[in-house]
């Protein structure tokens, strides 16, 4: 059906319909003619019956009027009888063709009746009634015979008519049945043909509509129905051309967009991997290939090395990575040497260039490829290869596109290399700058510490001498006072009587003063000693120490010291010592010193917060935690005191920096602690704090003894 044009199909359908119509009509016409003939026959018979009946009626009328005439003598009766006679003759004339002989017989009887009846009337007219009666009786005999003849004719005609009518009815019924069958068959065939014709039109049209909708929706991959020889086929061909044109346009646009995207990527990012991934992905996409690779060219080794790929199987990637292409081999080298893309239409047929790479490609099922050089200003940066599983040459457009992609790739590689060089230089510079800054800081710190140490040593030395005098003379004075008390005690009886009590009291006061002088002298000596220690560095001996015990002892010492200074002071001490902590090598007195500093500062912070905060709900807490960190031991000292802002934290370990009022702190505690932990023990000390929340110092001491490097290891958390 679809091999015919729609016009031919419609003509065929119409012709078939007309043919059925003509055949049906011919048949029906013939049947109708037969029926008509039968009906005509029947009608003729009915007409004959009617004529016979009318003849009978006319004969009856005639007899009536003849009788009436005999009685009334009226010419009207005579005329009526004549008229009836004439009508009867007419009816008999009509009947004559049916059976002339029978009609002649009727006519004979009729004539005889008429003659005799007429004579009878004449006799009655002439008042000869007896003769008239006799003649009329004779006439009556002929009348009866004529009546019987007419009745038999009517009956015979009626029988014939009934038979004819039955034949007509039967024929009509048969014709009706046959015509119904023909019509049903015609309707069925017509419906079937119509269905087939419509189907042959509607289905392709629907497919075309779907295709057009798909194209309208932008789907160029839509299937165009197969183009037959009919009008719809012509539409399908046109639509296919339109789709191809649209496809080409879209491909061109997509290529343009791809090139633009690649160009934009090249221009917007210096991430070479990203750019090359985009390039190779687009190259594979637009060349309708299945795999694409980009090779770097190493000028030093004169080799092309696999860089990245799109669509390549891991096994193939492994092959390609493992086997760089030496310059001068393979399509890439050919392309690089010629400066333009080289393609291999059938890898299986290119034995002369059958390198391992190509073997790997061929073994992976690829049959053809294009290789384009990544060239920029005669410098080779690598190569772009796309391969597909189908053998055959790539189109010029694809070759041109691959070349464009390769050019973009070359630009990207060049840009990336330049950028990498630049970034490496910047990185090197930044590292150098950082190291220089650190060195400077270290140098300054060292210089500061050195000068401070020298200054401190000098001052301490200068102070220590007079201080020794003070201390020594204070002790000596105290001893002298003891001797004086003993001396006075020997002669107590002589003195007791007067001002002995006052003398004793003065001695006692003087002794107290001496003690004070000695105490503060020792304290000053301690400070000086600390300064000397700070300037000299640690000198204590390391020994294995139970750090938990050391911490606990220092905590108790600090707490009682604080309580000694301020009886109202109270704080909740929380100990969380790691029981698995094994002894480690440290300088215990120095670490104790560090801990005392940290605890003292914590007590100071909570005390200050308690003093500043009227809220009685405040509970000063100092929590000390130890933890074995495998290779390191961590000590955390956390208080919930006043905390400190970041600017203070930054200066925390600076010598002589203190937030305490004058006389309450030397500003050397944390500085010394820093030196002890970092420089002496190679550990770290960090601080974390939130104003009016907490302060937490974290010490980490390495188990292995190591002296700290010159660089500071201070980390101040926010």
């Amino acid at each position, binding site marked *: 059906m679809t091999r015919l044009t729609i016009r031919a199909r419609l003509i065929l359908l119409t012709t078939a319909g007309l043919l059925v119509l003509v055949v049906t009509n011919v048949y029906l016409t013939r049947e109708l003619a037969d029926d008509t003939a039968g009906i005509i026959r029947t009608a003729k018979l009915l007409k004959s019956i009617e004529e016979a009946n009318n003849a009978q009626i006319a004969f009856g009328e005639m007899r009536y009027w003849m009788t009436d*005439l005999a009685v*009334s*003598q*009226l*010419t*009207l009766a*005579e005329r009526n009888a004549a008229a009836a006679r004439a009508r009867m003759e007419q009816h008999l004339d009509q009947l004559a063709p049916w059976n002339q002989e029978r009609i002649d017989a009727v006519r004979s009887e009729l004539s005889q009746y008429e003659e005799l009846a007429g004579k009878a*009337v004449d006799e009655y*007219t002439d008042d000869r009634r007896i003769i008239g009666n006799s003649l009329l009786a004779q006439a009556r005999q002929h009348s009866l015979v004529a009546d019987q003849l007419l009745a038999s004719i009517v009956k015979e005609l009626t029988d014939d008519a009934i038979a004819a009518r039955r034949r007509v009815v039967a024929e009509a019924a048969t014709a009706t049945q046959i015509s119904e069958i023909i019509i049903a068959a015609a309707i069925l065939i017509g419906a079937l043909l119509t269905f087939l014709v419509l189907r042959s039109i509607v289905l392709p049209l629907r497919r075309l509509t779907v295709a057009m909708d798909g194209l309208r929706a932008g789907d160029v991959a839509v299937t165009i129905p197969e183009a037959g020889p009919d009008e719809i086929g012509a539409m399908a061909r046109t639509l296919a051309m339109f789709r191809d044109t649209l496809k080409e346009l879209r491909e061109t646009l997509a290529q343009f967009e791809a090139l633009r995207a690649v160009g934009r990527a090249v221009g917007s990012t210096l991430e070479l991997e990203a750019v090359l991934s985009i390039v190779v992905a687009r190259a594979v996409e637009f060349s309708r290939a299945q795999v694409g690779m980009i090779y770097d060219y190493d000028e030093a080794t004169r080799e092309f090395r696999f860089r990245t790929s799109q669509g390549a199987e891991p096994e193939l990637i492994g092959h390609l990575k493992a086997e760089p292409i030496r310059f001068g081999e393979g399509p890439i080298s050919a392309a690089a040497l010629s400066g333009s893309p080289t393609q291999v239409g059938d890898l299986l047929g290119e034995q002369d260039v059958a390198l391992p790479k190509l073997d790997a490609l061929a073994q992976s099922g690829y049959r053809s490829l294009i290789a384009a050089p990544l060239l920029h200003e005669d410098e080779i940066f690598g190569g772009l290869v796309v391969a597909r599983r189908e053998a055959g040459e790539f189109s010029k457009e694809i070759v041109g596109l691959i070349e464009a992609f390769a050019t973009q790739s070359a630009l990207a590689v060049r840009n990336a290399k330049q950028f990498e060089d630049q970034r490496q230089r910047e990185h090197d510079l930044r590292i150098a700058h950082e190291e220089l800054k650190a060195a400077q800081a270290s140098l300054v710190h060292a210089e500061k510490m050195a000068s401070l140490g020298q200054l401190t040593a000098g001052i301490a030395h200068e102070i220590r001498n007079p201080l020794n005098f003070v201390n020594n003379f204070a002790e000596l004075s105290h001893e002298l006072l003891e001797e004086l008390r003993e001396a006075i005690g020997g002669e107590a009886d002589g003195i007791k009587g007067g001002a002995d009590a006052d003398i004793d009291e003065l001695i006692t006061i003087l002794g107290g003063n001496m003690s004070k002088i000695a105490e503060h002298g020792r304290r000053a000596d301690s400070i000086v000693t600390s300064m000397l220690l700070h300037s000299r560095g640690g000198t204590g001996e390391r020994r294995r120490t139970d750090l938990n015990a050391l911490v606990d002892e220092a905590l108790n010492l600090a707490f009682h010291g604080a309580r000694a200074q301020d009886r109202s002071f109270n704080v909740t001490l929380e100990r969380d010592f790691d029981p698995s902590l094994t002894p480690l090598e440290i300088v215990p007195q120095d670490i104790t010193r560090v801990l005392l500093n940290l605890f003292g500062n914590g007590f100071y912070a909570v005390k200050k917060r308690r003093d500043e905060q009227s809220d009685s709900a405040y509970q000063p807490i100092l929590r000390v935690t130890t933890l074995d960190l495998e290779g390191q031991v961590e000590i955390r000292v956390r208080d919930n005191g006043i905390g400190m802002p970041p600017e203070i934290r930054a200066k925390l370990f600076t010598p002589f920096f203190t937030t305490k009022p004058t006389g309450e702190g030397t500003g050397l505690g944390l500085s010394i602690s820093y030196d002890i932990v970092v420089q002496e023990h190679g550990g770290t000390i960090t601080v974390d704090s939130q104003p009016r929340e907490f302060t937490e110092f974290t010490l980490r001491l390495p188990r292995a003894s190591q002296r700290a490097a010159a660089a500071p290891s201070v980390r101040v958390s926010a």
Partner: protein
Amino acid sequence: MRLAILIACLALSSSVGAVATTGDNDLAIAQSLAEMLRDARTVISEKQDLINDPNLGDKHLTGEAVLNQAVELYTKATGVDPRKTDVSTRQARLLRAMMAAIVEVVDDNQATINEKGTGFKGFIPAAFARLVDEAFERLAKGEADVKVTAPSELVRNRKARPDTWEADIIKTKLLDPAWPTGQPYSAIAEADGRPAFRFMVPEYYGESCLTCHGTPKGEMDITGYPKEGGKLNDLGAVISITLYH
């Protein structure tokens, strides 16, 4: 009643002017017979209401009564009393036969005339005239015949059918538009194979005649007979008198 008027209208328009083709005696006899017949017919016509009165039994319309009134009319018309004519003459003899026929017919139909409870009795002037003609034919004993005939298409009773000669005269003479209205025709001609004096008196439709013989043609009149479609002054009847020689 209307039939009486009808018959009365068939008056002889003129009793003179007959074509004198025979002797004056025959003409006179024929004229007197025609006059007597018409007078008696006029009486019957005038008595139709009486005759057709269903409530009245004996109407005292006897043959003698009718004849007396006819004679009176005859006398008035001719100036001659028929009863006093010379009986020896042929005219008187035939006239008396006519009068006897009139009496006979009326008397023979007394039962009909006097029948109570029946309206129209069919004893109309035409029937009366025909019966009188038949009675006259018998009484005249072959000497003369009187018949009221008409053009063939207007004859209602076949006994009044014109014979060939009459039909010819009616057609060629009396129906001729040039024929003087009312003028009788007389001639010596054969009748039933015998030489005779034949006298034809035309009678024309008057207004009253058309009640039964006028239009519309074919419409039934009171007697049940279709009207002939006649018009005023059309030839409606012919009194044919044959005097055998």
